[in-house]
């Protein structure tokens, strides 16, 4: 039965020691270990020249499928024309409601994160959705998602005081995945919204936008 390599020989294989730095009694074992890793095949592997055409043929077929076209349409950024007809009193009522909501949030006993996505209005194709995050100590916050190609700089939130950050975006009708980006690097799922696994160990929040508003 072969025993394992001496810890110093393993450090040799890791590149942390040279053969000359091993004690003389370990040099033979070290040479044997180097023969082992030296047998590693580092020659490049070339795949079939037909692979590219196979991938593109599949990709074209997927792109042409109705479901994929719809998904792509939902995710394609486009200019949204907003035609909001408002009366002056609605502006004041809106401002008062926002102030009341903020006061309610700040009056909470514990600094719980504030759920994002509240619908306000918009056009037939888009709905205004308000994103709110409680992030005391953050220097900047943005929201990135499928609606802006996960661009971390496209939709910054503005500080509303006491650690609350907010912004309002016009989102096209459909289901969107998103996350907040704190200080340009840290991805934070919306604690107030349902989340899905993105397939790579991270959580994306989800908001569904219909002509009637946004639904978490």
């Amino acid at each position, binding site marked *: 039965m072969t025993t394992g390599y001496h810890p110093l020989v393993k450090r040799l294989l890791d590149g942390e020691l040279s053969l000359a730095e091993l004690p003389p009694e370990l040099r033979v074992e070290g040479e044997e270990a180097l023969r082992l890793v030296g047998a590693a095949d580092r020659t490049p592997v070339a795949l079939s020249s037909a*692979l590219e055409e196979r991938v593109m043929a599949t990709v074209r077929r997927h792109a042409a499928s109705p479901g994929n076209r719809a998904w792509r349409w939902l995710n394609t950024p486009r200019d949204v024309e907003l035609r909001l007809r408002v009366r002056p009193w609605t502006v004041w009522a809106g401002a008062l409601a926002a102030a009341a909501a903020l006061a309610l949030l700040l009056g909470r006993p514990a600094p719980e994160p504030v759920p994002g996505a509240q619908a306000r209005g918009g056009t037939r194709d888009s709905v205004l959705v308000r994103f709110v995050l409680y992030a005391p100590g953050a220097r900047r916050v943005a929201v990135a998602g499928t609606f802006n190609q996960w661009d971390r700089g496209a939709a910054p939130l503005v500080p509303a005081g006491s650690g609350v950050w907010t912004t309002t975006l016009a989102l096209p009708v459909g289901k969107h995945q998103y996350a907040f980006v704190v200080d340009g690097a840290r991805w934070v799922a919306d604690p107030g919204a349902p989340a899905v696994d993105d397939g790579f*160990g991270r959580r994306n929040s989800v908001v569904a936008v219909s002509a009637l508003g946004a639904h978490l």
Partner: protein
Amino acid sequence: MGLEGEATDAEVVRAVLAGDVERYAVLVRRYRDRYARYASRMLGSRDVAEDAVQDALVRAFDRLADCREPDKFAGWLFLILRNRCFAERRRRQRTERSLDSTDEMFAAPDRPDGEYEQVERAHALQQALQHLTPEQREVFVLKHMEGLAYEEIAGVTGATVASLKMRMHRAYDRLRELMKEHL
């Protein structure tokens, strides 16, 4: 061709998402061979590796809208391929396909000096790798075949350097046992 070569991954990703499906071929050409060696060594077969790379590229296209950081498309694609390789290993273990039957494996490299012993040893190592756990095999492949440092491996796999070293050191011991007649 020049323009294609100059376009960044992020530019190509955004063009594809905007509807220019044909631009995806730029990414296919750019990455089709980059991860081929990793997939081949992980799966023990170039044919199986080719299927894995093809599936990963198609899956990346299907999920392109989920790519949060298009300028890091390469790393994102690697994660998809890595998941695909691990899933393939699990599938093969479930179907009890013998990992010894890797005669389909690529030939051992030609050595300039043509030493039979070295060619045999390379072939033996390739077979021995298939007896490691997928995690041990991966760290060996990335370090000793792809030439990555532990810190770089930690960056692409999400594991800590300490746990990677532990896996690797166990792999060294296991490989020594498996290769004792060839060393």
